[in-house]
């Protein structure tokens, strides 16, 4: 009877498990295979390389090529830098905003809907909107604001008494967010704007289950709001924080649209973007980079799983 109990569910699970295995294993093994052969989409000198075949076996040649390629280490560093920065910004802002809108005030419903709406903007639209309408140094808000400040200061220079003071002020130059030095920050900014609502949403739902009597007791004992936040609210939110960190890391390790739109990888290239550049022609190198991306994702996942696992156990 007991063995029968297990057999039937297993049989019923089989189609789903098999499908999942196919869905995961086929792409992964094809990627592994391509990463060990010469496979380019077009090569006029060596047409035999343009079809995937075991006779083009290359061993670790693709890996060696990728490791020495321009920007490989830069891309790894950037992947980690962009993800970490976005995580810090969204968790800190998310906590602050969630606690703020947790209080009762008139118009709370509207405020909450407005707060969450950036999350429903498509990533490419988000990037186009930010880079062209907000961050553009000439036609965007950035350029218009700088030009506005400059012209106001310019007007104040003609003032009879205070003019000399404003003459000391420099003429401001707008920052270009498509430049190599700044493009990573542009990506961080726009993604953080889009994903802070996600953190707010998760934290807000979780705050609603916070024990109010505990807080009342703390108030009676004379605990300040700040010490209540640190000692009661933050521990209460440990689990949602872990979940926000995990889900966001998964999504942001594969950022592509924002990078393409901001500066085409100049200064903000991450591993997926590097894969995208190789897929123009060199599928072997793209696959090898893909395997490196799997390794990087797994290293990060080990840390994350430990962290999440720990907070779920507590």
């Amino acid at each position: 009877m007991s063995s029968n109990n297990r057999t039937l569910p297993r049989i019923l699970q089989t189609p789903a498990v098999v499908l999942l295995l196919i869905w995961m294993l086929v792409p992964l093994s094809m990627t592994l295979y391509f990463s060990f052969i010469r496979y380019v989409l077009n090569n006029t000198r060596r047409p035999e390389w343009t079809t995937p075949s075991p006779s083009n076996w290359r061993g670790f040649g693709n890996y060696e090529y990728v490791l020495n390629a321009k920007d490989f280490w830069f891309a790894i560093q950037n992947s980690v830098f962009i993800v970490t920065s976005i995580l810090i910004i969204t968790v800190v802002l998310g906590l602050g905003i969630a606690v703020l809108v947790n209080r009762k005030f008139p118009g709370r419903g509207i405020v909450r809907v407005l707060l969450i709406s950036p999350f429903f903007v498509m990533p490419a639209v988000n990037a186009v909107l930010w880079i062209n309408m907000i961050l553009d140094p000439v036609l965007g808000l950035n350029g218009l604001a700088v030009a506005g400040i400059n012209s106001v200061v310019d007007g104040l220079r003609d003032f009879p008494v205070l003019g000399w003071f404003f003459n000391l002020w420099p003429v401001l130059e707008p920052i270009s967010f498509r430049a190599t030095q700044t493009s990573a920050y542009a990506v961080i900014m726009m993604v953080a704007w889009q994903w802070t609502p996600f953190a707010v949403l998760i934290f807000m739902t979780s705050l609603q289950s916070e024990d109010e009597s505990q807080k009342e007791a703390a108030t009676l004992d004379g605990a300040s709001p700040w010490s209540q936040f640190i000692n009661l609210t933050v521990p209460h939110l440990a689990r949602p924080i872990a979940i926000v960190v995990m889900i966001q890391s998964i999504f942001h390790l594969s950022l592509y649209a924002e990078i393409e739109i901001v500066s085409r990888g100049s200064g903000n290239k991450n591993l997926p973007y590097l894969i995208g550049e190789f897929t123009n022609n060199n599928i072997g190198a793209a696959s090898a980079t893909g395997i490196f991306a799997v390794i990087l994702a797994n290293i990060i996942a080990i840390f994350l799983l430990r962290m999440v696992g720990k907070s779920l156990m507590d």
Partner: protein
Amino acid sequence: MKSLRNTALGLSMGIVAASTAFADGHAKELTIAIVNNGHMINMQKVAEAYTEETGVKLNWVSLEEGVLREQVTSDTATGGGQYDIINIGMQEAPIWGAAGWIEPLNFSAEYDVDDILPAMREGLSHDGTLYAAPFYGESSMVMYRKDLTDAAGVTIVDNDSWDNITAAAAAMHDPENGVYGACLRGKPGWGDGMAFVTTVANSFGAAWFDKDMKPTLDTPEWNAAVTMYVNLLNSYGPPGSEGNSFNEILALYNEGKCGLWIDATIAASFLEVDGVAYAQSPNAGNPVGANWLWAWAMAVPSGTENADEAKAFIEWATSKEYVQAVGNHPDFGWAKVPTGQRASTYAIPEFQAVAGFAAAEMAAIDSAAPGATDLKPYVGVQFVAIPEFPEVGTAVSQEIAAALSGAKSVEEALAAGQAAADAIMKEAGYY
């Protein structure tokens, strides 16, 4: 799971392609991938008449230049068959024709293939067979604000020197009133910033490769060209030039923010400011010239099941009748007809009446020299007709953008570009 999605990028593309090809096997429907430039966008509207006449339904996939190239290359190379008609450029057409990725085009006598400008026809053929039909063609030229040069007391002449161009830009530069002397491309990408920088390099006597196809970015000619370019843009260009390509500069120009702009001749038909004058591209005295040659053409990928309908549509869209249809269309008119493809377009009186740029454009196209020479041992002006060039050009272009934004010096950027180009050419088996 997520990491798998990263790696499966190329693979999933193929799966999607296969499933869509399966879905539209029967109906008279064409899926057309186009670049999101003005003339192509207009075509979607003009072609409504074609659907009415023939009953062929047209599905447009309008993509940004760089994205279009990636999509179309992967789809065509793997025989995906996602598209029935693709927009390709002069860089791809001869290579793809040779690889058998696109079908040869034979049109009826009334299409008048001899009417297509010789430079265009040559650039889109392989071994004398036409593989892509030009929708519009272009060269590059200087477009400057005559009102501003007159006010500043400077002149710009045909094939001017770069020193004089710099001086003219300096004279017009007035950032406090929102006018920048020179707007030039800087956005990374071989078809974006690199296209312009290559013409500058050509004019200084530099070339991409030597006879053995070894990159030559470490030569003094390249250094002189890129140094001049970076200084010109940093001194007299708008802020954020490293992010500007054709469409971005067009927006700036039409806002009245640019003094001079050196770019595709096709831009002339989209300029909405008054007082624009034209001059042939500046030259530092090199016979290769300083203007590029490019065509956006339409081709039929070999994977499609609707090859006959696709060819019929291309025959219509690149015909003399199409030019008439745009000219007589209530939304567009003669100032917006696609140019640079046919000699007959320039002979239309209504077009001549509205297109002040026509003569300059025709001269620029005729003077472009795409063929291989001793100095430049490869085909192509602002590109190199080899499959590896997009990768090489984009890698170098990112370095030049870094030099433009001040993250690297010109020497560092060119050295990094040389190393990257060398690695890519070695990987491709050239040496």
